[in-house]
């Protein structure tokens, strides 16, 4: 099977300081991957590279076998095949319905279809009663769930989630995790989830990458990472210790 993403020698620098430096990394298709690591490790930067929001300073990324098109004619099609939930989601002015409908409207989906899909997505995250609410007034957890609904509604081939339950209570976390777990079975989708919640990573993912200071410390099956970590750093991290 062609992997969803395959990274080769990817380096991202800011002010000539590398914040991401990945020798080789493959995200297989149709499974859930977890990206874990301490704050500032480069997790969000990695997702931004995959979502074509950040062009690497050097290195190459392939997307289902083809080079990831940061610019040019194919770039829009590639972008429209993915969805991302940002760590701090920005809501467009307008109401919740408009925000969730946006991705569909951008893809010229018919109004009637939009309606049905938006309501279904809102139901998935349990927020149907907020349809007409101005998106600016949402609580932290509500905004995060709307951002997830907004990402799901377009049926992406690849779903990139940056700490999607960081602002949620345990009950809601369970619901959202159920939603995430169900998607690959239903539609065949690759999900990459960044999370600092190690239990969540264990519960959801089949593969896991442990990043620290921009470098891959370990990358293997979730089971291996958590139950049989090779590197000392990984051992410390999964046991909840601080790693430097």
């Amino acid at each position: 099977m062609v992997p969803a993403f395959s990274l080769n020698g990817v380096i991202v620098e800011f002010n000539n300081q590398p914040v991401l430096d990945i020798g080789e990394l493959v995200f297989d298709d149709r499974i859930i991957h977890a990206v874990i690591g301490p704050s500032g490790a480069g997790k969000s930067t990695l997702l931004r590279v995959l979502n074509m929001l950040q062009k690497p300073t050097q290195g190459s990324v392939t997307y289902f076998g083809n080079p990831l098109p940061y610019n040019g004619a194919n770039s829009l099609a590639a972008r429209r095949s993915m969805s991302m939930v940002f760590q701090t989601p920005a809501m467009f002015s307008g109401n919740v319905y408009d925000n969730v409908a946006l991705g569909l409207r951008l893809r010229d989906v018919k109004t009637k279809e939009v309606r049905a899909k938006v309501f279904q997505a809102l139901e998935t995250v349990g927020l149907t009663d907020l349809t007409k609410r101005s998106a600016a007034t949402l609580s932290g957890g509500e905004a995060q769930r709307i951002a997830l609904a907004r990402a799901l509604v377009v049926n992406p081939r690849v779903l990139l989630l940056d700490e999607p339950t960081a602002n949620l209570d345990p009950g809601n976390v369970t619901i959202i995790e159920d939603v995430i777990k169900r998607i690959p079975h239903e539609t065949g989708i690759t999900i990459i989830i960044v999370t600092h919640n190690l239990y969540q990573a264990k519960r959801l993912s089949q593969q896991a990458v442990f990043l620290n200071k921009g470098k891959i410390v370990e990358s293997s099956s979730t089971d291996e990472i958590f139950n049989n970590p090779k590197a000392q750093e990984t051992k410390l991290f999964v046991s909840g210790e601080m790693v430097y």
Partner: protein
Amino acid sequence: METLYSSMLSIVKLILSGDKALYEIILLSLKVSIAATTIGMLLGIPFGTLMGMYRFPGRQVVVIIIYTLMGLPPVLAGVIIYLLLSAKGPLGELQLLFTPTAMVTAQVLLVTPIITGLTMVAVRGKEKLYLETAVSMGASRLQAAWLVIREAKAGIMAAIVTAFGRAIAEVGAVMLVGGNIEHVTRVMTTSIILETRKGNFDLALSLGLVLLAISFMINGFLVAGVLKYLQRGEQY
């Protein structure tokens, strides 16, 4: 000041009586400045949005040029258009000098930089927060620009108001290329100049106040109308 009172009175009477000459002048003022502002918007909003959304080498110089052109003296704009449209000028064949078209052209020169510059700043202020989200959600370049414009609407609205204000208040350019010809190119501001020249300050002042009243209505319409349209969004 009593003469002010009496000339105000006579102007109010004129307005109520439906005096054709006054209406003609008011109408032409509106036509010319609305046309110029509209064309300025069609040119300036896209260009300003581009300038606000993208970084490129030499951008700062372009910004300084735009800022400079925001302060283009109306008379200079007038002279430039005059030289272009003059019978012996490059576009003389069109015979556009001393027509409302010439006036609109000169004003477009004045308002386009204003709309461009202010749109640029407005878009720049929102771009950080919204451009990436838009692109990530699958917006094409055009769609992304439209989404950012929507978020920057308050600032762009101010750009339009500023440009319209300059157009309707401006006299140097329209006087020069329009010629202040009665029934043809006479507008509110050139009438005010005419009255001032004759020493009829009270009449000039009254006409000025009529002009302001009209601006007030148009701005009210813009602010309230746009507010309504964007009810769901942020406030002005």
